């Protein structure tokens, strides 16, 4: 074998080794994103509290990590499902500011191009994920009755999207390699169309500047129906500040989604005082395919269909259509991003590797060999990093419904289910009607696995801030009762009127919770964790009329196990000295040794 040298006396065997290393690098080694299947599974079963806890514990802390905002989006969706928007409000504030920041990854074009998407500055999500995140922020504000913020967030979710049909049409004659994969074929036609536009404009066919996109893409109004609905609802509540806007938005909804004409008409009529935003199923999973795994594609987790939501409330049953199908958004090129860059990178990378190796292996010129190797390494690096980043918001639902109801009275029962999906059924009890002239918004996440008992019990087993005292066990859960209301003077008075805790002051009562290491939402700082009814350290009340409320109070729970001697003593005294505590069905307290927490 003829010897070639590179630098100092580098022999042919070393050159072969270098080439083999390049080949290994070129085999595509970007790690795929690992979906949090535990969180997905817990969400599908309705275990929103546990899912939220797991997501919070696993959330990346470093702000420079690409997944930082992705983890926060997950927490927001799960806090809403758990009926505790206050658990995610600071996160939602930050998330909104981030989503509204322009050019987050600008200036990273070349860096991302060579280093791979995973080294781009931050993950912001596909356009449809950004729209859904903004919609959830609007829902959070709606649960707080902040209609100005609902309108603003919903409005921001209605950004224009890019229509690529001209570019695809230009590449209609391309020789696709997809073998029956229409999704891949459409992307190949898109690239061919862009390359053709580059050629016609005398640009390099492998030009990655995006000039061809600017030439061929048409901005079109958003078809994000959920955004229009939320905006119409909010505008109606702003007391005439935007005359005519609610009707205009309802008309826009009708234009982009004619199948939602009935809903648009209801929005115009304003004959509702309760809005239910109801999510069902799990959103699509992102995966890689195509040359060098460069294409990010989505596949459904829950299948799409047109099954309506059936809602029975106040003696009336209505059905509501699917408003947003997340599967459809994910598969729509108008709602995807960065595809052209990844594909172009893959093809350029392949070309560079071939060219580089030829120079290095066959040139006798030392400088040419060095340059050839450098080019080959660059090409190999590009191929290795061409694999698509498959990060995605796995806690998204597959579909969203919007139900507009007119409730009356202090506590209504609402029975919901997706038609044909009995495991989705949920019974909400004690849903209060809002005050006259006011509107309320509730967020509900239906289960699509498991049919948990709490979902259909139709009962409230524990007194809370929404229900008020129950007719039994009106003393704190931590002392053996059935009350988990936030302690205050009025609550203490109510206990004492029921014959419990006579002589105890409010300060004494608060101290008992402190002895147990329990924290109270709205008073104590920190991230709201698991509820004391589930063995956690927090006292909070999910909003009535949410899946989180039904989940927490809709089944009986094991007796509380006291941690501190003081609370054990008080509980024992209470349960031994008060016949009422036995007669009304309350459980006695358990000594600390009976069961581990």
């Amino acid at each position, binding site marked *: 074998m003829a010897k070639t040298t*590179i*630098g*100092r006396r580098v022999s042919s065997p070393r050159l072969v080794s270098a080439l083999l290393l390049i080949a290994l690098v070129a085999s595509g080694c970007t790690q795929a994103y690992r979906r949090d299947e535990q969180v997905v599974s817990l969400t599908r079963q309705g275990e929103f509290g546990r899912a939220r806890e797991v997501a919070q514990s696993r959330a990346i802390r470093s702000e420079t990590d690409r997944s930082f905002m992705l983890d926060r989006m997950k927490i927001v969706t799960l806090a809403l499902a758990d009926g505790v928007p206050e658990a995610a*409000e600071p996160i939602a*504030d930050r998330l*909104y*500011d981030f989503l*509204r*920041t*322009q*050019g*987050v*990854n*600008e*200036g990273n074009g*070349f*860096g991302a191009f*060579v*280093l791979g998407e995973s080294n781009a500055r931050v993950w*912001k999500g596909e*356009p449809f994920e*950004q729209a859904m995140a903004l919609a959830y*922020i609007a829902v959070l*504000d709606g649960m*707080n009755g*902040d209609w*100005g*913020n609902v*309108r*603003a*967030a919903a*409005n*921001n979710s209605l*950004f*224009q*999207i*890019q229509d690529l049909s001209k570019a695809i049409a230009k590449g209609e004659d391309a020789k696709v390699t997809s073998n029956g994969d229409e999704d891949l074929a459409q992307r190949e036609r898109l690239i061919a169309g862009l390359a053709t536009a580059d050629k016609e404009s005398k640009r390099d066919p492998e030009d990655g500047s995006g000039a061809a*996109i*600017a030439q061929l*893409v*048409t*901005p*079109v109004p958003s078809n994000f129906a959920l955004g229009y609905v939320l905006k119409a609802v909010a505008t109606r509540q*702003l007391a005439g*500040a*935007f005359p005519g806007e609610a009707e205009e938005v309802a008309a826009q909804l009708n234009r982009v989604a004619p199948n939602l004409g009935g809903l648009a008409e209801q929005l115009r009529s304003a004959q509702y005082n309760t809005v239910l935003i109801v999510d069902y199923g799990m959103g699509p999973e992102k995966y890689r395919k195509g040359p060098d795994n460069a294409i990010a594609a989505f596949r459904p987790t829950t299948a799409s269909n047109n099954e309506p939501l059936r809602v029975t409330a106040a003696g009336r049953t209505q059905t509501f259509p699917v408003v947003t199908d997340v599967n459809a958004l994910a598969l729509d090129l108008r709602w995807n*991003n960065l595809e052209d860059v990844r594909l172009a990178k893959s093809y350029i990378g392949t070309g560079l590797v071939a060219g580089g190796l030829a120079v290095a292996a066959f040139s006798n010129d*030392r*400088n040419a060999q*060095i*340059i050839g190797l*450098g080019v080959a390494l*660059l090409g190999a690096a590009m191929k290795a990093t061409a694999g698509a980043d498959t990060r995605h918001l796995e806690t998204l639902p597959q579909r969203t419904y919007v139900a507009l109801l007119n409730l009356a009275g202090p506590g209504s029962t609402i029975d919901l289910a997706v038609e044909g999906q009995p495991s989705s059924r949920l019974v909400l009890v004690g849903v209060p009607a809002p005050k006259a002239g006011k509107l309320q918004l509730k967020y509900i996440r239906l289960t699509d696995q498991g049919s948990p008992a709490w979902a259909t019990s139709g009962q409230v087993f524990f007194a809370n801030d929404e229900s008020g005292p129950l007719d039994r066990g009106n003393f704190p859960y931590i002392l053996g009762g059935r009350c988990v209301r936030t302690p205050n003077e009025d609550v203490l008075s109510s206990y004492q009127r029921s014959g419990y805790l006579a002589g105890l002051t409010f300060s004494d009562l608060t101290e008992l919770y402190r002895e147990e290491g329990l924290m109270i939402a709205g008073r104590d700082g920190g991230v709201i964790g698991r509820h004391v009814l589930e063995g956690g350290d927090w006292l909070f009340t999910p909003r009535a009329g949410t899946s989180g409320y039904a989940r927490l109070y809709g089944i009986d729970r094991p007796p509380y196990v006291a941690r501190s001697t003081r609370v054990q003593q008080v509980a024992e005294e209470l349960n031994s000295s008060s016949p009422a505590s036995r007669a009304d069905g309350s459980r006695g307290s358990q000594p600390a040794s009976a069961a581990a927490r």
Partner: protein
Amino acid sequence: MTGCPCWTKLIGVAVLGAVGLLAPSCAAPARTTLLKPSDLVLNTQKVVEQLAGSDFLRGREGGRATPIVISPEPLENLSDNRLSSGDQWVAISRVLLNPQMLELLRAHNARVQMPQLKSEAIARAGLTINEPPAQVAPTHLFRATLRSLARAASASGGTVASEATQRRDTFVFEYVIVEIQSRQIVWSGQSELARLAHGSLID
């Protein structure tokens, strides 16, 4: 052999590549039109000056005027930008609790009474204000509204508005003091500011 020139050439190529990869722009343009705390400070000064020169205060003859108690309501956000609940109260309290404002009001026999929860939050932040006794009901309300006008365009003048690279938001803060009994607006003030941001809105 020493100082092999081939390695310096490789290093040179790498450095050139790194410059192309990593060179940031020296003066980064603004990336968001969202309001910053400094915007609210600017806004406060203008409003205090307007109130100082108003007929409402001039008509109150210093310490001889009937005492009034002013209580703020939450800011009404009618803009195209979400404002966190914390920032909504900042927009109100920066104006109403500005030391110059408080002094001005006190000199005209007007006192400020914050909603109880907000008083607690202010106290936790280490701030103090001399509030009237809790049993004194407010006589006036301090209200604020935020509106905005947003415009987005492509810097290159192209047609790709979804890749809009410029956004301009003009914010208008409107403040009023309303007499509760008569529901009459006894004073109004306004301040305006504009913010421009660059970069793709969706990326």
